[in-house]
């Protein structure tokens, strides 16, 4: 295996816009909001950025094609700007582009931006989207909750978990994230909810109720990366480095062959295994300090706990109910509120997760800060649908770990 990315790249600064129904802002203003915070954190000038990547998913509805919108919004100095799109992993993809550029030596300092403006569609939920002329003739025109809800029917069938037990575990996921989001001023939803509220909410896609689904929001998040050496030369002493970046994309096996049982994400398992290897983590359950996973829906978060090898297969729902992933549990998951409370501006989410992990590692997370000196933090993005998807894992940690 290649030597990997571990400790070759440091995060120089990060920023995150306030997520929500940003009726007041256009996409360029949201990007600027995240950028200004990141630049203040990094302590550099725009002229020092060598290249930039923009992660955004829905061309037609918001940001538009190409890297131009980012270059124009920030008035970048005619550098290379590339737009990346990989469904909900787009934010992490922009980070990957910037990190790889620095790691290769092609750039000293690179920028990753993720942004999405979803509240200009006129309706709730994600825009309906084509998957290409050929696929549209044979694929379904479902919604994101409908696609992910199928995890639950399969999970129950495969693991023999009762409908009520699974629904309760799913509800715990949402109650936990709302409790965390209530402490986060940048979250879209900042209100705690009760088990009863979650369990009795209107059905969106069986068995996912309203509170099992993340919100749809506008938002942007930004990272500036460089080498650890340059970071030190710029005066940084407390350094967070990239430990692993892995991406796995379905090749059609889940959807077309017969080995997959529908209850998990094959790609996440592959990406997680490779990421731990790259980061030198041998026992994620004891070594990870905190995690941000792609909780587009409560059931997604639940099965992801198994797919990233923290919970045993078929037992994730028990760990959830035991509070293992609560803010005061052994490994907090979505300590910032997650997609559940931030909402899910597709291109921004991956960087928003890394942003929270970055703050926690530096002890800058305010009221929600973990007090046990976090060392390794994992973030996970998932795009597409359970039977055909893109999974990304980013592990960052303290440079000395």
């Amino acid at each position, binding site marked *: 295996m290649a030597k990997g990315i571990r400790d070759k790249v440091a995060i120089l600064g990060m920023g995150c816009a306030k997520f929500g129904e940003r009726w007041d802002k256009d996409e360029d203003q949201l990007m600027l909001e995240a950028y200004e915070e990141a630049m203040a954190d990094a302590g550099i000038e725009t002229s020092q950025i060598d290249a930039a990547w923009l992660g955004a998913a829905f061309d037609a509805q918001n940001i538009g094609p190409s890297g131009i919108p980012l270059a124009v919004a920030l008035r970048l100095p005619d550098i290379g700007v590339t737009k990346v799109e990989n469904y909900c992993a787009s934010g992490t993809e922009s980070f990957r582009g910037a990190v790889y550029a620095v790691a290769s030596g092609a750039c000293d300092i690179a920028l990753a931006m993720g942004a999405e403006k979803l509240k200009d*569609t*006129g*309706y709730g*939920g994600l825009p*309906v989207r*084509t998957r290409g*002329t*050929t696929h*549209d*003739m*044979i*694929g*379904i*025109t*479902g*919604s994101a*909750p*409908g*696609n992910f*809800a*199928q*995890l639950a*029917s*399969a999970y*129950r*069938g495969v693991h023999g978990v009762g409908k009520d037990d699974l629904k309760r575990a799913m509800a715990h996921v949402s109650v936990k994230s709302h409790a965390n989001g209530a402490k986060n001023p940048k979250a879209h939803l900042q209100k705690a909810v009760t088990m009863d509220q979650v369990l009795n909410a209107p*059905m*969106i*896609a*069986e068995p*996912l109720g309203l509170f099992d689904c993340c919100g749809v929001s506008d938002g942007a998040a930004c990272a500036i990366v460089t080498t650890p050496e340059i970071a030190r030369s710029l005066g940084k002493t407390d350094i967070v480095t990239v430990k692993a970046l892995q991406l796995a994309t379905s*090749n*059609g*096996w889940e*959807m*077309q*062959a*017969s*080995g997959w*049982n*529908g209850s998990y994400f094959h790609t996440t398992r592959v990406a997680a295994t490779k990421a731990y290897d790259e980061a030198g983590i041998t026992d994620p359950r004891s070594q990870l300090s905190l995690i941000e996973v792609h909780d587009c829906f409560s059931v997604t978060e639940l099965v992801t706990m198994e797919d990233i090898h923290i919970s045993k297969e078929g037992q994730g729902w028990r760990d959830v109910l035991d509070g293992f992933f609560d803010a005061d549990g052994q490994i907090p998951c979505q300590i910032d509120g997650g997609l559940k409370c931030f909402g899910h501006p597709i291109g921004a989410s991956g960087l928003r997760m890394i942003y929270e992990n970055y703050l926690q590692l530096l002890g800058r997370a305010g009221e929600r800060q973990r007090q046990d000196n976090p060392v390794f933090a994992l973030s996970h993005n998932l795009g597409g*649908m*359970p*039977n055909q998807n893109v999974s990304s894992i980013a592990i960052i940690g303290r440079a000395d770990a």
Partner: protein
Amino acid sequence: MSDFGILAFGAYVPITRLQRSSIHATNGWFAGGLRGLAKGEKAVANWDEDSVTMAVEAARDALEGLDRATVQRVAIASTTLPFADRQNAGIVKEALNLPDAVGALDVAGSQRAATSALLAALGGHETTLVAAADLTTPKPASEREMTSGDAAAAVLVGTGTPIATLVASHSVTMDFVDHFREAGEAHDYDWEARWVRDEGFARIMNPAIAALLKKAGIEGAAIDHFLVSVAVKGVPEMLAKKAGIGEGAVADTLGANLGHAGAAHALVMFTAALEKAKAGERILLASFGQGCDLLLFEVTGAIGSVKPRIGLSGWLARRIESSNYAKYLFHRGLLPLDRGMRAEHDSKTALTALWRNRKAVLGLVGGRCTKTGTVQFPKSEVSVNANDHAVGTQEDYPLAEVPAKVMTWTADALTYSPDPPSYYGNIDFVGGGRMMTEFTDFAGDALDVGADLRMMFRIKAYDENRGFRRYFWKAAPAF
């Protein structure tokens, strides 16, 4: 005895039975005179069905267990064909995965289109699949709305061991306009029923029936099954009496539990008769429309050996009662509900891509790797087998007739569906192969992991901007 005749038969009836009382409950204030018809139920097509999809189902029913490669010609008869210029029989052909070297024709324009198509097939020498289907959209609160129903039937005509042979036929053509519908219009315009009965059915059909019997050299009493494809009560009995046909021979017109299926109805009644006919019996099939077609069949000793897969009786037994008249109106485009912005999604079809993928899209033909045996949908150049991505090894593997099981499912209330919630999920075919598809015709809580499925050819999406409809296969409950 001739070895040319009816080789096989089948039918199709949509699962929903709209209660006529519910129509009257809504419209009775306005059209109180319809009270007398507000009894029983009518079969109504689902939102994703049309005459083409119904004809496909009837044809599948008829072709059960037969080698489809023997079919040389496909005819579809209907007055409600979805395309005015795109051969509808060609879509049926693709859905049935018949060889490309077949002839095809659409027969339309009259309530007796199906019998005319059948007569043409019987007068030829090719093995012809004659399918008939009608999906009518009568005006709300009309008598026709009460009496009509949606259904399809199919017969295979050709050389072999017929279950029935044509003994004689007689046709009369005259421009008697009892009702009409201009091209492109949704609704029929009907003239007074009493005039139609007395000047049409009686004056035109009585002498024609007499002429047919004379041609055949038999008396009316020799008829065992008298099939009159007319919705008006008492007409078959009146015609039988005049022709000397026994009262017991008059067939049920299926008005109580199906309704009159327009141009398809004569074939629907014919398949109903074939289900119970015995060797040596005579069937007189009569259809009316700008004259009439009369066909006299004799049932052969082979009758018991050929059965449809489900048959009209089976399809009639598969039913979901509905009193939701508003839903029916919406599905027929007669009630413009606010469908929301999600319904604005553009469903344009790339005709180039449809042509390239016609076998997969219209025929549900997947691939089977000749090296590893892996079955997959759709077929691809590089095999999906995780251990052997063999290139160029796949052969056609038809999946439409393969039973399947539910692997995952959901009921999605967010995505736009004309019949929310939208049911879809991953399914596994028995013997290999899987796909994600929509479910149709499910009711209540029948849908669960492991449930048995049957694939059905349906409308996937309507492209309202261009007047195109996209077809694909959906999974329905097996039965």
